[in-house]
């Protein structure tokens, strides 16, 4: 049984104010794939991400993580396997110290304190942030916050990483570092972003959302080479492809 598969079928979601955010989205992401999720503002990217670990539940359609359908009953298991990294690290880092923050997930999973400590150190080392372990999260830089936010999820050893705008607010060097970091992870990755160059670097596959529907789902280079398609979805050719 593999937990690494994400399958979404005919997913629909309507917000309480009657905004139709998702209108029948279907895709299947298999083990180890990296998928870029792009689209204009308000296309439904964030809403879709919130369904992948049960922060929202579908109005109709279904979400499968591994072999489980996402239901209120097994949502805890799903969250254990899907590590969600939010757009604003200030939302993700809410504890008084970096250590407490990275330990938050494993402690909630009921792990013994010694193992939690090992996991925290391991996760922080993976993102090169072990020197920040005793710092309060509001006193570290934006790039450091992002790294620590990723560590808070890695400490739970998820199979799938879901990232919302991971490169927003980062300076070019921190962004480059983040890309290097994410490249090394073997997890299944789903990355929602406006940073198409980042998608080009990290994801072989891209899904474009438009008004809550999938406009296209396919090979990243093919899609980014199609200027008419990009234009229709409020996107632009990535800079690195414009040069070549």
């Amino acid at each position, binding site marked *: 049984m593999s937990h690494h598969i994400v399958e979404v079928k005919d997913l629909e979601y309507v917000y309480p104010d009657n905004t139709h955010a998702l209108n029948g989205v279907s895709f299947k992401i298999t083990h180890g794939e990296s998928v870029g999720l792009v689209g204009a503002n308000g296309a439904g990217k964030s809403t879709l991400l*919130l369904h992948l*670990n049960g*922060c929202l539940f579908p109005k109709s359609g279904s979400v499968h993580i591994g072999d489980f359908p996402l239901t209120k009953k097994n949502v*805890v298991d799903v*969250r*254990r396997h899907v*590590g*969600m990294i*939010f757009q*604003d690290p*200030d*939302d*993700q880092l*809410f*504890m*008084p*110290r970096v*250590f*407490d923050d990275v*330990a*938050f*997930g494993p*402690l*909630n*999973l009921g792990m013994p*304190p010694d193992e*939690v*400590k090992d996991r925290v150190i391991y996760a922080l080392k993976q993102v090169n942030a072990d020197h920040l372990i005793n710092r*309060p*999260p*509001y*006193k570290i830089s934006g790039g450091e916050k992002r790294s620590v936010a990723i560590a*808070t*999820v890695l400490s*739970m050893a998820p199979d799938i990483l879901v990232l919302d705008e991971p490169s927003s607010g980062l300076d070019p060097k921190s962004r480059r570092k983040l890309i290097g970091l994410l490249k090394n992870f073997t997890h299944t990755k789903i990355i929602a972003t406006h940073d198409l160059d980042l998608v080009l670097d990290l994801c072989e596959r891209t899904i474009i959302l438009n008004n809550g529907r999938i406009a296209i789902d396919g090979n990243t280079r093919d899609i980014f080479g199609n200027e008419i398609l990009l234009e229709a979805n409020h996107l632009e050719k990535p800079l690195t492809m414009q040069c070549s």
Partner: protein
Amino acid sequence: MPKVEKTLGSMAALDDLALNETTLRSLDPRSKLITSLVFIVAVTSFGKYDLLSLLPLVIYPVSLIALGNIPAWEITKKILYVSPFAVFIGIFNPVFDREIIVQFGSFAIPGGWISFTVIMVKFALTVSVALILVATSGFDSVCLALAKLKVPQIFVVQLMFIYRYIFVMVDEASRMVRAHKLRSFRRSSIDFRIFVSMIGQLLLRTLDRAQRIHAAMISRGFTGEIRLTRELKAGLIDWIFVLGWSVFFILVRIYNIPELLGLLVMGGLT
């Protein structure tokens, strides 16, 4: 709002002081917390004219400032910031209470002034001890100490979150004020109606953020309980600290030490 930002910055600086390596820092935060609470109870239990007998308690904050290498001016500044609250509580005492309590020859002091001074001294003592507690332990250690002393978790968590997000909220508020300032040109103050809508907007942003934080928490398995693993160790020195000071506070409360000292000196002279 830059002023608020500055004040808050100095609050964070106060927290940073706790990183200094001093003997006080190495004490268990629980022992400092308990001693401070005993101190506050002792201070507040003095009567409204007990100015003289209250004075020996000054020794506690003063010795903590000395032992903890805390810049005394920083603490004084913070006390002055909040002193208007205490002034307003006691301001009418001199007006209503004109009965003469102390008489030095022709110089008479009415009870109202004495009770006003007692309020101010009590205020300065309690606030300084609370600030010193944070400066020698760090805010999160104080929260941890509260949790280990079985204070209901809901209060501890509230306190932790307030401290964590007050910086974020002030940042958001000052960005709004800056945006307003940049487009209001010669107008220096904020119009009441605009102010109301800004406060409303800040509330909505806060609610939004609260929802996002909650989503981040449940994504990592939050079920209503925050688990803190850091252990605290109380040693002999902690017991000596708590008991020694508490006994001193109780003695000061029961006996009027300045008066006893005075009698002793006078007795020695005659």
